[in-house]
């Protein structure tokens, strides 16, 4: 009896404590009027105005979309590229929880956070692009299960994967809120979320490519192949890891005080190791590209202007970064690996824009070019994502979380002891 009576006020106190804590945490920290904040804030304000116009007057008011080009920058960049570069989440959980490569454990949280935010913001961008966004839940609630649609598959797998990423990240939030018991429960769900998450991610990454299977005759033959789902999947592996490398580089500078010592210590090894995986997948991707080219007997197109553009993509932004990654790994040169990562990211951006926009109906009389307003909104979305990322990283145990795998700690301690 006593126990139950006592528990209720305690629960109330607890809720109050949490509420106050969260309010406290919502306040900005550090200097507010930094150049970055001012610029990104302005971007977001302008975007809000533009989006108000978009929702009042329709997509045509601020975009250059047309009957011939129903998908533009918001799909080609915000969704297609955004999801590809958020691929680091599932690849790294695979490396850490399935392959037990403990060395990568220190960056797991920041990577999963990045992936989760990547998905949330991709979904947000999609909402802006949908003509009738109020119906977005229809394929979930069954107001039409379009089971023969690749997009139906992508929608479900995307949605469920984002949930899995949230579960994977949730222990960090629980730690931040000081909810130990809940943290333990959530932590117990991680492995299942990882296994499901990898499967779901694999399918929707491939599915995004699959969206173009019926665009046969619209997509330039050099980019159209029945293997496009495989290409999208493989490229998401190195795209995701490249973003992890670049993000690691930036975080080290920007969030220096938040960095845990394990993370700082292993930074170089982790970057090089990821570089090696990138090199491997990039070579595989290059090989696949060449095989589809030969298989489809499409080499005649290479001698055209679009062919030159295609070669620029697969040589300049696939083969070259692949070599750089390998080189950087071999000579243990972190700078080279980071440069390669930037190039690989540019390559994926180029590929997604090519498929969704540039090589889509290349012969159209009036080709789509995004309006400045579409570009502005895209930049604002990136800015907003960075804001949220920064807010979380500055508050939750992401870069310095305590539960570093004991084995790493042990290994590091041991080498540390040896050095001392």
């Amino acid at each position, binding site marked *: 009896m006593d126990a139950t009576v006592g528990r209720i006020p305690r629960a109330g106190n607890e809720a109050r404590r949490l509420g106050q804590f969260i309010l406290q945490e919502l306040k900005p920290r550090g200097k507010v009027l930094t150049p970055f904040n001012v610029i990104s804030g302005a971007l977001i304000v302008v975007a809000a105005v533009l989006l108000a116009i978009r929702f*009042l*007057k*329709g*997509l*045509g008011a601020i*975009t250059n*979309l*047309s*009957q*011939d080009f*129903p*998908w533009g920058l918001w799909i080609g960049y915000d969704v297609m590229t955004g999801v590809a570069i958020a691929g680091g989440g599932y690849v790294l959980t695979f490396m850490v*929880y*399935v*392959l*037990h490569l*403990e060395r990568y454990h220190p960056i797991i949280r920041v990577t999963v956070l990045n992936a989760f935010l990547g998905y949330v913001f991709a979904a947000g961008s999609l909402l802006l692009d*949908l*003509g*009738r*966004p109020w*119906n*977005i839940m*229809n*394929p979930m609630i069954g*107001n*039409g*299960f*379009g*089971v*023969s*649609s*690749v*997009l*139906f*598959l992508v*929608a*479900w*797998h995307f949605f469920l994967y984002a949930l899995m990423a949230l579960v994977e990240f949730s222990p960090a939030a629980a730690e931040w809120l000081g909810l130990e018991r809940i943290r333990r429960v959530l932590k117990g769900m991680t*492995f299942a979320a990882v*296994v*499901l998450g*990898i*499967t779901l991610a*694999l*399918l929707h990454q*491939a*599915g995004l490519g*699959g*969206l*173009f*299977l*019926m*665009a*046969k*005759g*619209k997509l330039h033959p050099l980019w159209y192949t*029945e293997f496009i789902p495989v290409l999208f999947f493989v490229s998401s592996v190195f795209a995701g890891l490249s973003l992890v490398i670049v993000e690691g580089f930036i975080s080290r500078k920007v969030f220096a005080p938040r960095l845990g010592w394990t993370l700082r210590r292993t930074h170089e090894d982790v970057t090089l190791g990821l570089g090696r995986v990138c090199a491997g997948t990039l070579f595989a991707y290059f090989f696949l590209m060449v095989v589809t080219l030969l298989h489809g007997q499409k080499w005649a197109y290479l001698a055209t202007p679009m062919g030159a553009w295609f070669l620029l993509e697969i040589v300049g932004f696939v083969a070259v970064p692949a070599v750089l990654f390998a080189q950087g790994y071999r000579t243990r040169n972190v700078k080279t690996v980071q440069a390669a990562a930037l190039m690989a990211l540019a390559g994926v951006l180029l590929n997604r824009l090519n498929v969704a926009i540039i090589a889509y109906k290349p012969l159209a009389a009036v080709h789509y070019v995004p309006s400045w307003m579409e570009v502005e909104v895209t930049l604002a979305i990136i800015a907003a994502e960075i804001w949220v990322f920064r807010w979380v990283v500055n508050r939750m145990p992401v870069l310095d979380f305590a539960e570093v795998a004991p*084995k790493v700690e042990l290994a590091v301690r*041991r080498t540390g002891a040896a050095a001392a």
Partner: protein
Amino acid sequence: MIDRRELLKTLCVAGGAAVVGKNLSAEQPAAGPAREAMGVLVDTTKCIGCRMCEFSCADAHKDAGLEFPEDVDFTAERATSEKQWTVVNRYETDRGQVYAKKQCLHCLQPACASACLTRAMHKTPAGPVAWTANKCMGCRFCMVSCPFDMPKFEYDSAVPRIQKCVLCWERLEEGKQPACVESCPSGALSFGPRAERLEEARRRIYAEPDKYVHHVYGEHEAGGTSWLYLASVPFEQIGLPTDVGDEPYPALTREFLYSVPFVEILVPTFLLALSAATKREKDREAAEANAEGEV
């Protein structure tokens, strides 16, 4: 009773789809035997370019916001739009001027419907491919997928619709003909069961072999369409795409969709096995390292 059975069936399909991922068939179910699929035959040799079909279409679908442009001089080729579901163009061909009407072809296995993730775009058993407002989320995937670029989108509306010819499905249910067919004064358009229209097209070719190209456009194109075309000149000369192939478009995604349930079962199994294997490996290494450390 029937309703309940239908509901159950839908629920089972939906449930199965949600659990396994997708169903196993990329194509839309073929039109049921209960109702014969209808079609329209366009004989471009008979078309006089009066644009009555355009007029009656705009008139019949005023509610959808369609308009009839008065000042058309046929100098530029026009495409259908969100305000015009059908247009008549004039083409300079090897055999003089030919007029040809264009609209959604109402494919037998429509790319647009198989692309639609909400079934807003759907093939009705009677033949028309129709669109349902309260289902559509405006993703425009139907537009990307249609080989004939027929679905159009209202970019200038806050509540945009997908616009395309719906083959007057409501009129068909009332037992009437499509508005355009009814208004055609020259006999260029004729409506009836598709199979019968196809027979009629063949009959005309046999009867006047010099007049027609020996091909019925739409018999096989993109897996077959409800609209069929006859012409005196090769079809690319009257603006019909001849590179769409005979394969139904939904078949292009079939292999990918088929592979999904397999991936969903095999990948997690593989991941579990792999995880167990590497864990054992790691533990052994750790044990060895410890043993060495002790030595």
